[in-house]
């Protein structure tokens, strides 16, 4: 066992897949000689060569378009968005072209688009976004969002092996903050579409993913210590397709649900989860389904304002207390 960071785990996953399968290649801005803005692909050019680690022009549309073409031709591209905020430039390629290819033309598009997401790093509106809701609505895509080092590795490997296009959302605040002992030599593949019970509880369920998993776990600990409230924490890991069975299982156990995500509120993933619980487990609810999310504003630069806009541990504690007492 060695302790690896979330970023190192992701790097290992990419490396192992490129070693395992020579159809896998990487393309993106500054991913080659520079090693990527966050150094995820540092050393890859030296090992795999410029043919498999391709520096591209600054055009997200071109990156995803080239990756889609390569995927149709039998390769397994992993496209990096230097910051996930700019995936919107490739929105047309992903939603109109990539997501529909199998349905329109029977074309498999086994590509991965990955990039650093999220705030808590004072990055402001262009370098802190969480784009999942924009793609969550698109049939034909899969979306994974690891929160732990193990899943950072396990999900990149699963995404690369998947025959459908996968958005792999990685959280830059977790890159070097989250560490975990991972076994050497053992292959870690996290199945897409399976949530993980991160903490057992009986009084209410906190359903979350990404960086807010850690805020939720902190909140659950505080609730246990200060209130004697046992909160269950479910890490979704995959957003599309959602693991309805895991969510419903937890609802039937605790009967109260708090959904936490870092993305903004309106039209966010929490709304869809709420609707599914209503459809599948309405009679098991002992309280309204509540949300803790970012406020509906572009993320401010000012540290105090960023802290206010993004969900914090105390916001989760407060909402959970209210729900527990309901």
């Amino acid at each position, binding site marked *: 066992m060695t302790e690896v960071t979330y970023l190192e785990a992701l790097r290992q996953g990419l490396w192992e897949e490129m070693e395992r399968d020579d159809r896998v290649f990487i393309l993106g801005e500054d991913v080659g000689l520079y090693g990527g803005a966050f150094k995820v692909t540092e050393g890859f050019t030296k090992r795999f060569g410029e043919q498999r680690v391709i520096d591209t022009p600054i055009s997200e549309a071109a990156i995803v378009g080239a990756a889609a073409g390569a995927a149709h031709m039998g390769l397994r591209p992993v496209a990096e968005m230097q910051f996930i905020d700019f995936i919107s430039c490739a929105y047309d390629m992903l939603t109109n072209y990539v997501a529909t290819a199998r349905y329109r033309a029977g074309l498999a598009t086994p590509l991965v688009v990955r990039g650093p997401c999220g705030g808590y790093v004072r990055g402001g509106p262009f370098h802190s976004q969480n784009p999942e809701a924009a793609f969550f609505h698109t049939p034909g895509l899969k979306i994974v969002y690891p929160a732990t080092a193990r899943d950072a590795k396990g999900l990149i490997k699963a995404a690369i092996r998947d025959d459908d296009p996968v958005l792999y959302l990685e959280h830059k605040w977790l890159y070097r903050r989250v560490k975990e002992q991972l076994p050497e030599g053992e292959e870690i593949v996290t199945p897409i579409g399976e949530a993980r019970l991160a903490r057992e509880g009986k009084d209410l369920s906190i359903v979350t993913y990404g960086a807010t998993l850690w805020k939720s776990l902190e909140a659950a600990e505080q609730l246990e210590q200060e209130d004697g409230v046992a909160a269950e924490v479910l890490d979704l890991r995959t957003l599309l397709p959602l693991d309805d069975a895991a969510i419903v299982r937890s609802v039937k156990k605790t*009967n109260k649900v708090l959904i936490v995500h870092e993305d903004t509120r309106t039209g966010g993933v929490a709304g869809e989860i709420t609707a599914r619980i209503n459809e599948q487990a*309405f*009679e*098991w*609810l*002992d*309280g309204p389904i*509540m949300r803790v999310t970012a406020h509906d504003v572009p993320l401010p630069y000012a540290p105090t304002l960023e802290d206010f806009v993004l969900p914090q541990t105390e916001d989760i504690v*407060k*909402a959970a207390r*209210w*729900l527990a*007492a*309901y």
Partner: protein
Amino acid sequence: MARVEVLMPQMGESIAEGTLSKWLKKLGDPVKRDEPLFEISTDKVDAEIPAPAAGVLAEIKVQEGQTVPVQTLVAVIETDKSAPVPVAAPPAPAPPKAAPPPAAASPVVPRPTPASPVAAPKGDGGETAEERLRKRSTPLVRKIAAEHRVDISAIPGTGFAGRVTKQDILGFIEHGAPAPAPTAPGTRLPAAAPSGPVQHPAVEPWPGDRVEPFSKIRKITADHMIMSRRTSAHVTSFFEVDYTRVAELRRKHKAAYAERGVNLTYLAFITKACAENLRKHPVVNAAVSGDNIIYRADVNIGIAVALDWGLIVPVVKHADELSLVGIARAINDLGERARTKKLSPDEIQRGTFTITNPGVFGSYAGAPIINQPQVAILGVGAIEKRPKVVTLPDGTDTIAIRTIGMVSMSYDHRIVDGADADRFLADMKRTLEDFPEGAI
């Protein structure tokens, strides 16, 4: 007659107040159940609030643009078609265009109360706010209730606004009876007494103020106190009692009592003195029902216990049949279990007279509010050594140091006249001042 209250709802977490943005109905308008009544906006949501019952919009308490705390009374719907419809509520909005049919002369004719003393106060079709509150429950609780054939309204709720939670209903099913939560059913009304929610007027909170909804016990107490004030014609009489003899008896026998595990308090003597004399003055141990007086067969004395979370009144049953040690033991036991929330529901019911003892906090004398549907409550003032003029056997007067305390009794002048009350108090005073040593 059935009046259904419409309250400002809580529209989400951490929302303490809402603004009434628009009335969709006018005073006197007929409304259907679930028909939008008014619009509200909070800092999180805007919503139309449906009418909780069918009837006529009888009162408007909150005007457009006003911001009030959640649970504030916003309107009243009269569900009884024959009830007089008000021409305008005190804070009249626009001139009442939709003039109601000209009601006979005065709109405030008191409606005759039902002749039968046991007529339930709830009307046809309409339910009281208490009933609606009790039935408001989550899908899970309704599901469990249906599976176990349990009536949700019979379960005391510990959730927000008295909502029955999963724990409440599971506990109820498991134990078969409501857990003795910190509620005070002893102070709540039996069916025969005039019941119904009380409208506590809204007060505008100022910036920085903290607005906290009533706890269940606070709501019951608040409603009960107002209801009692409105129901009974309160009069209070004050008597000074010389406890010197009781103090001496206490001093002599305290250790012997302690050996038997009983704390011999002044309150035990006072309760004993009340119990002895209530039998002789049945009108003080009574209730009013319509135009009837119910003389209670039992003498059950409630003892008010102040808890950190409110007030509860456990009852010493058949106090007139207990010895002093029996009374002292009962008071010790009930007080202790009130503090540890271990009272069973029947131990806080069927009181016929109440004693409250604010003297332990130093109060000289008070004018307590009657615990309905009883007709008298005794307040015990601080007991301490005070100078007192006494007449010596040779006829000369002197000032002596005596153990003195006030007792005050609020009584319902509808049936208890001043003479009745004072005769009872005089007898009680005499019993205490000449307390027979044989009764120890």
